[in-house]
């Protein structure tokens, strides 16, 4: 005995030590990435990259409310100034056009490389006359004021041409020179948009930026004004804080509950301490397994870990109670096989999660499988060495057992009403039809008001509301830009179509700022030498209002442009255009590039369907049309479909396991009956309360099958073990009490996470808490009775 005990304890301690070592070096993340799919298709990949690493992940929307327009504008300017000085932000934009001065001069300097109008024809006499005519048509109007100062250097209006293409279709309203809200019937706001230098995933840096914004606003000492914030960085920081808060209270309350149950079971502190060991072992092993499999652990997984407490503590309860009567060896013979079967069914349930499409659920699966196996292994191999005779102390087991016995005696009378309820639930479910909801946002832990504020700020700022994108991708930058240029030409065609509005109002493209080198070279090659240009100019301006002699600066500028270095990505960044670049151009980790071309819908209309856009874009490789809303829905639908299949497979695996163990059709049927009813009643209850079911509810139902099968099996075994041994006196109070305790811990631990503010956890918790309670009640009600259930009521206390 001695060496075995030492080996078991040493091995356990060593493994635990390794787990702790790994966990110490593990990164814990708490963003929303857990609920973005793991293996998206190429179109979804762009979307997810945008969400995770793109500009939106670094963009904050700020609103100043209260006071009057002048006070808000002054506060907006002062806040923007201070935030720019903080160096935390790549860009702070409040609509103050002064900030655009340097960008304007960059465009002016590079007008012959950037203007889409530049071609050889443009510099013939006819082309020049046309270009100059177009510029002159604006002079003498308010718009002409802006071009008059550069008329002599840019008579063909290339700067104007570039600017015209860059005018956004939808832009924030401007009041007192700064951005302001448009929506009537709401508090009036001044609006700002900030882009942090730090990556969106760096939540610590994002939090620092948020705090800085609040501090700077506080020091403005603007009485009557309040600051509101929104945006992905805030969501990330808030979600993390929320998840951390949830983990804290869930683990504290979960531990408290576990202690309470153990006290209930044993009334002994020593037993309580020993029973906690498989739980601790399971949790540590679970975290380690996730860390090894995924490289990092999502905080949501930890929050879910509290339910593992409920499962793992059952093993300790079973052992400590049952080994007291039978000894460790006896338990290994009679108790362990039941625990093993329970473990296997639970593992079947959780293993299905590993194959789900969401990393968050995959982590839960790995965590639970590893945790349960470790807890069971501890119970099987270490527990008998530590506590060979189980635990002393009876606690309230006697009372619990008696109550169970009474309930078991009485519950079968409810068989018919329960069956009727099951049928009613099935009818309700069929009648409702729209039971499953395909909506990713249902998983967001953020409060509705927060999302509503975000939506209203986004509407005011016209920020990030493109519903349809064309995406050009390529192995290198130049190939990507050339594809984007082809797409941009096709999209311009759609915008210019028809008498009134086009099929789209316009689009954005990085190629307006950064044409491919080939196009820039082409434009340069089209620029004439000084002499032919002067000759053509003389011809073009003859008899017109603008004399050629005045246009010497134009001739010089064209000559300079012929030898100008092309505009590059670095040059754009140096000119302060980093945010523009990042909004429209991304480099993937593998070095390839993606250009995004968001489309604006025509006034009072919508962007043409993807099929029409694809038709317009046909002929160029590497282009995709993405409709964000339907893409997200499609994505979730796909995962819902996958999850339904996986859950079904998981449930089938549980049933196969049961069938293999029982090897008797009638018994299998008897076990399945209450399970099916439990699932039906759970779904029916949720439907009756108007809850729409998503992937997480589905996962919960699978766990109900996995956990609930244990109860049904228990009753089956009671009956048939009695047969084998010819005892026939029914279960003793301790066994009944341990069953009640196991169910209580499950219901309590899942019930606890049902109270969580995290919708993902609450969904699983509600379903499993409710479902496992129903499963026990139903298993008791439908327990196969032997000769009129006399054994159950007549059993003496052990």
């Amino acid at each position: 005995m001695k060496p075995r005990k030492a080996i078991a304890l040493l091995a356990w301690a060593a493994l635990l030590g390794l787990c702790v070592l790994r966990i110490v070096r593990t990164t814990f993340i708490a963003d929303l990435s857990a609920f973005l799919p793991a293996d998206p298709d190429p179109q979804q990949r762009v979307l997810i990259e945008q969400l995770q690493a793109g500009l939106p992940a670094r963009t904050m929307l700020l609103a100043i409310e209260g006071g009057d327009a002048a006070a808000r504008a002054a506060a907006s300017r002062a806040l923007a100034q201070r935030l720019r000085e903080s160096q935390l932000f790549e860009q702070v934009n409040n609509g103050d056009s002064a900030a655009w001065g340097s960008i304007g001069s960059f465009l002016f300097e590079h007008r012959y490389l950037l203007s889409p109008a530049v071609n050889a024809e443009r510099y013939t006499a006819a082309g020049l006359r046309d270009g100059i005519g177009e510029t002159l048509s604006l002079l003498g109007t308010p718009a002409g004021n802006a071009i008059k100062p550069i008329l002599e250097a840019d008579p063909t209006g290339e700067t104007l041409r570039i600017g015209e293409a860059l005018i956004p279709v939808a832009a924030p309203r401007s009041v007192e020179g700064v951005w302001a809200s448009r929506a009537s019937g709401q508090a009036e706001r001044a609006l700002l948009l900030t882009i942090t230098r730090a990556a969106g995933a760096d939540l610590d840096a994002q939090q620092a930026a948020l705090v800085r914004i609040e501090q700077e606003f506080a020091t403005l000492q603007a009485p009557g004004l309040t600051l509101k914030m929104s945006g992905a960085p805030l969501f990330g920081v808030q979600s993390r804080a929320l998840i951390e808060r949830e983990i804290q209270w869930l683990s504290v309350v979960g531990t408290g509950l576990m202690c309470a149950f153990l006290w209930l079971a044993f009334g002994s502190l020593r037993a309580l301490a020993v029973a906690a060991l498989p739980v601790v072992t399971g949790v540590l092993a679970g975290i380690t397994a996730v860390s090894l499999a995924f490289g990092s652990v999502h905080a949501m997984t930890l929050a879910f870990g509290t339910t593992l407490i409920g499962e793992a503590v059952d093993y300790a309860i079973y052992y400590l109670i049952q080994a007291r009567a039978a000894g460790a060896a006896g338990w290994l013979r009679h108790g362990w096989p039941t625990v093993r079967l329970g473990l296997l069914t639970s593992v079947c349930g959780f293993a299905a999660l590993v194959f789900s499409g969401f990393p968050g659920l995959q982590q839960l699966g790995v965590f639970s499988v590893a945790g349960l196996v470790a807890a069971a292994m501890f119970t099987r191999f270490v527990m008998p060495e530590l506590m060979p005779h189980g635990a002393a102390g009876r606690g309230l087991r006697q009372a619990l057992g008696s109550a169970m016995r009474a309930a078991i005696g009485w519950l079968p009378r409810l068989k018919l009403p329960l069956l009727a309820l099951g049928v009613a639930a099935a009818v309700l479910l069929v009648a409702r039809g729209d039971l499953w909801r395909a909506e990713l946002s249902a998983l967001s832990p953020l409060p509705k008001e927060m999302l509503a504020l975000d939506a209203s700020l986004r509407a005011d700022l016209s920020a990030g509301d493109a519903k349809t994108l064309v995406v050009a991708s390529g192995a290198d930058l130049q190939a990507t830009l050339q594809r984007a240029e082809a797409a941009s030409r096709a999209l311009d065609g759609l915008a210019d179509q028809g008498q009134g509005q086009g099929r789209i109002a316009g689009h954005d493209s990085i190629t307006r700022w950064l044409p491919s080198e080939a196009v820039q070279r082409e434009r340069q090659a089209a620029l004439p030498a000084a002499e032919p240009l002067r000759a053509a100019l003389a011809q073009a301006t003859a008899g017109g209002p603008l004399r050629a002699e005045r246009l010497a600066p134009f001739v010089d500028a064209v000559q300079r442009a012929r030898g100008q270095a092309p505009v590059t990505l670095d040059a754009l960044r140096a000119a302060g255009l980093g945010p523009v670049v990042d909004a429209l151009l991304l480099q993937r980790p593998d070095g390839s590039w993606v250009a995004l071309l968001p489309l604006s819908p025509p006034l009072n209309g919508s962007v043409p369907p993807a099929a029409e856009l694809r038709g317009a874009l046909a002929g160029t490789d590497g282009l995709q049309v993405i409709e964000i809303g339907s893409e997200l829905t499609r994505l979730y639908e796909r995962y819902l479909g996958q999850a339904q299949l996986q859950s079904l497979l998981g449930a089938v695996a549980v049933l196969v396991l049961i069938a293999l163990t029982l090897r008797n059709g009638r018994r299998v049927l008897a076990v399945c009956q209450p399970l099916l009813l439990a699932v039906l009643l759970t779904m029916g209850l949720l439907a009756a309360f108007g809850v729409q079911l998503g992937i997480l509810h589905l996962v919960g139902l699978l766990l109900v099958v996995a956990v609930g099968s244990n109860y049904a099996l228990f009753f089956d075994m009671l009956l048939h073990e009695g047969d084998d041994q010819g005892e026939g006196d029914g279960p003793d109070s301790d066994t009944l009490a341990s069953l009640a305790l196991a169910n209580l811990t499950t219901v309590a631990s899942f019930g606890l996470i049902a109270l969580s503010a995290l919708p993902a956890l609450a969904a699983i918790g509600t379903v499993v808490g409710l479902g496992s309670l129903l499963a026990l009640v139903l298993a008791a009600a439908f327990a196969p009775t032997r000769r009129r259930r006399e054994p159950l009521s007549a059993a003496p206390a052990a």
Partner: protein
Amino acid sequence: MRRADFIVTMATCVLLPAARAQGFDLTQVTALLARNRSGQARFTEERIVGGLDLPLHAAGTLSFIAPDRFTRTTTEPRAESMEVQGNQLLLKRGGRTRQMAVDAIPELMALIEAVRGTLTGNAALLRSVFNTRVEGNAARWTLTLVPRDAKLAQQVRELKITGLHSDMRSVELWLAGGDRSVMSIEPLQPLASQQAAPR
């Protein structure tokens, strides 16, 4: 009415501008203008721009549909159009179409409000953006608009709109730099105002 108008006109001529305060003000001008629910007109425009040897000429059509749609289509010397619909501006030049939000550019907004306020006869709107001055009488009036906003005043010095009864007949625009344009308007649907009048 004709007779009354005649008398007023004569009286104005005789009594000189001193008499203009006799009840004819912005409210009455806008009341006249508000009778137009829609209309179409031809225009010719002459622009005098400093630094250019010759004045610039343009011609085209104007159309208006209450409450907030109007279009200026230039046919000479180049085909261009500008259409305002609510808060959206649709520009067509050289075969290209651009759309933008009017209220994103306050100066543009003010000018569009001037046109819209005049076309729809919205006195409050005009007063909110401009200092207004009215001269003349119902038969022949002049409405002068001077921007209140300093930023707009850096661009536009004043707008002078003249009209006969409910019809706008010319718009003179003085830019801050000294350039100016004069647009003469010839209504194409003289019956429109009379049809709408009974409302």
